[in-house]
């Protein structure tokens, strides 16, 4: 197989950076607009965006792997990272549904 395979950690970092950005925006909103609907609504929007981003990221990974452009190890890692990042985003979003102003 002479296909070019990528074997780096970047897909993993991307997945977790999506979570970290999601977390930071949620927290900052909670600090800037305490006890106000703005914080919650913003949280829901950003959660949707984050989940979408992880989904897109995962889709791209699958395509790249099917093409043969991603080594097996790198793909499994990136898949696992996407799953963990998704779980973390879901966890992080929960309080915004429970703590309403």
């Amino acid at each position, binding site marked *: 197989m002479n296909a070019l395979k990528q074997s780096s950690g970047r897909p993993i970092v991307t997945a977790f950076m999506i979570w970290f950005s999601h977390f930071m925006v949620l927290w900052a909103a909670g600090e800037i607009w305490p006890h106000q609907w703005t914080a919650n609504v913003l949280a829901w929007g950003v959660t949707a965006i984050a989940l979408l981003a992880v989904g897109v990221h995962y889709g791209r990974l699958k395509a790249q792997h099917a093409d043969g452009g991603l080594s097996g190890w790198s793909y499994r890692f990136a898949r696992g990272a996407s799953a963990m990042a998704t779980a*973390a985003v879901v966890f992080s979003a929960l309080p915004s549904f429970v703590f309403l102003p």
Partner: protein
Amino acid sequence: MNRSAPPGMAGAVDDAATAPSETGFDTKLYERFPTQGDRPPGEFEALKKVWETPKGWRAFSDVNNNFIGFLFIVTAFGFFVAAGVLSLVMRVQLAAPMAGIVPQETYNQLFTMHGSVMMFLFAVPAVEAIAVMLLPQMIAARDLPFPRLSAYSYWAYLIGGVVFFCSIFFSLAPSGGWFMYPPLSSGVYAKGINADFWLLGIGFIEISAIAGAIELIVGVMRTRAPGMTLAKMPVYAWAVLIFGVMIILAFPAMIMVTFLLELERAFNWPLFDATRGGDPLLYQHLFWFFGHPDVYIIFIPASAMVSTMIVTVAQKPLVGHEIVVLAMIATGFISFGVWAHHMFTVGLPGLSAGYFSAASMAVAIPAGAQVFAWIATLASGKVQRNVPSLFLVGGILIFVMGGLTGVMVGMVAFDGQAHDTYFVVAHFHYVLIGSMVFPLFACFYYWTPMVNGRQLSEEVGRWVFWLNFVGVHVCFLPMHLSGLMGMPRRVDTYLPGRAWDLPNLISTVGAFIMAAGVLLFLVDAIRCYGRKGGGEDNARNVYHGGTLEWLATGNYAVRSIPVVNDLEPVWADPRLRADVEAGRYFLPGTATGARETLITSSSRAEPQYVQIMPGPSWWPLLAALFTAGFFLLLTVKAVTLSAICGVLTVLCLMRWVWSNDRHLPQKQVDAGAGIMLPTYVTGPQSHGWWAAVLLVIVLGMIYLMALFSYLYLFGAHPDWWRVAAPRGALVPGLLLLGASAGLAWAARPLMARLKRGSGLSAAMMTLSMVCLVAALAVDGLDWWHAGLRGYASGQGATIYSMLAWHGAIVVAVVLSTFYYLARWMRGLAPGPANKTLEALRILFMYAALEGAAGLLLPRLLPWGGV
């Protein structure tokens, strides 16, 4: 004689065929290994000679990771014992109500020192020390990439740590708790220099921890054995990479927060003083942004040690290896999102607290994955019954208990009761002892044969284990109860009649049982390490481990650097040891007559160049001595002497760095089997470039914390923003900074292209420095003339703090310029490229960016005046 290809070499060649080369290295060259025939006579002797530790007192100038790493581990353990003794005194005091064994202030100093020494002088240094000693061996590197830097880090830590610890004997120890919250730690309530000892002493030890982290990251990424791709890298190497990156990102917050508190104490700038627009919570956010990742910085490498040892103890590969690596990465990331779970009772809005609670639950998941990976690995093999396995299994049990109480206190409502009580004390001792201290003991028993060819006593070891295991439970289990009974933390005594007497007495007994175990260990360790001779040079692989550190036969680690492609290369290839020792792989001797190791590419570990490494040198030790002198004399307010030490530090550092950038007569050398590799590499491939980039990331994080402080105080107390932002400095400042950045940037390409490039680039760097200084002056004077003063308000305090920190960076830039000019004048900064220019240029460009951030932020926010 035709032998079949060894699995390491064959695997590397196959692997390389499936992916593009990162560097253009022809991986078919691997097939030349292992070389046949005998090595030339004298080659091995030359290798041994150049790596030898000097004899007698000159040994202290050695910088090799085995020497420094060993001292480092011993020192860290020494601090563990010292802090443990402090806790014994505390436990005697608490064994009975109103016991009166030590006065109140002494007790408060004791618990502050116990926590500070354990966290700053034992826990993080111990895991860094083990990495210093173990990492190069495990990846078959001869040493860490910047040996004198690790030597400097160690000596600075030793001197600073000992002086800091001794403060308790003079009643000068800080007494504000190991987190030193203001206002209790501010100049108003903590008079005297005790708190300054903590701020300046610990602050500069953190600098040495960061230096260690930069080195470890470059070590993992660039000095692995050829063929050891990321996928085939040991779990421990992953952990070192992860915790190194975490240190880079988290420790800056500690540097900035100690800087800010020291500014408040020294100059009365109200950063945390609510009466003038500061905020005590700013300190807590900054401190815990560092503090929580700190404990995972301790946990992650220790957990990887456990993973490594469990593999050997079960004689089976790690079940779920990829899950474990991913779990460590996930833990590393998520641990940056939980910090305010230490602040659940400060009155955070419910939603904000909820976010931190959610992340705290999430971070438990990867930790649990690791535990089950360990259990599955143990189950998959036949577990050896020895002392390391005792400590490993015992540690897992203790850690799981601590992790579960951690889930409990991660729930905000329960934490409302448990926070700041002995329940939490029980929790964190369980997690730290289970995840770090027990693995540390396991590590001593497991790797001592590698260090000195001997073994600690298995019989005594069983006693050490059981005394510690029983002692831990007897001491800390009752603390869950005393916390639920209402006993807060950090109390020097308690009233009778509260039923707290019995759990406390039991805890005290437990503490002494643990102490007995540690004492027994010390006796055995001294016996084992103190004996002269008798140990073989060979790392005796008594536990039958599979990783490369077991091939080490001296300071140089392995006689020749093998091509590997397995997670347990020693298991995969029974002939590996013989081949390596016979010099049949890379660098079987010394190609240039100096100490050398192989620099390989970051993902696929393809050989790139041979790094010439420094031998013994006194400069790191002297620089560390003077650095310690600078900070500690400043603490006791001996400003002149401190300044002298500062100057001497700079001179020692410059003299040290002077020999860094050496052009050798041999541009290329035979790295083994006729493969020619360069000896001097510039550009983004150079490991020095990587270190400079990592340093700049650290500086950027520190400054980011300063910017955050500005934003936080402005958001929380905008009524204290009373000086309208002067706009006069904006245009000249930005122009000067743009010029500074541009000049520094252009210095490198111009030097490469022009014949007189060397002089021109020196001039450009000088001009860049001048612009940077001018920009700082313009910015600072702009505020001064607008009437802003540091002591007047939160606005003044944060702005002048940012200017002060930036000023320190500018001083470094100025000194660097003089250094570079000196080199240029001596002809040591030649074109077309040299490493010194490249490293300094990165610093200068960063400094300009930092200056721009400091110039812009306070002038853009608030925008419309105050």
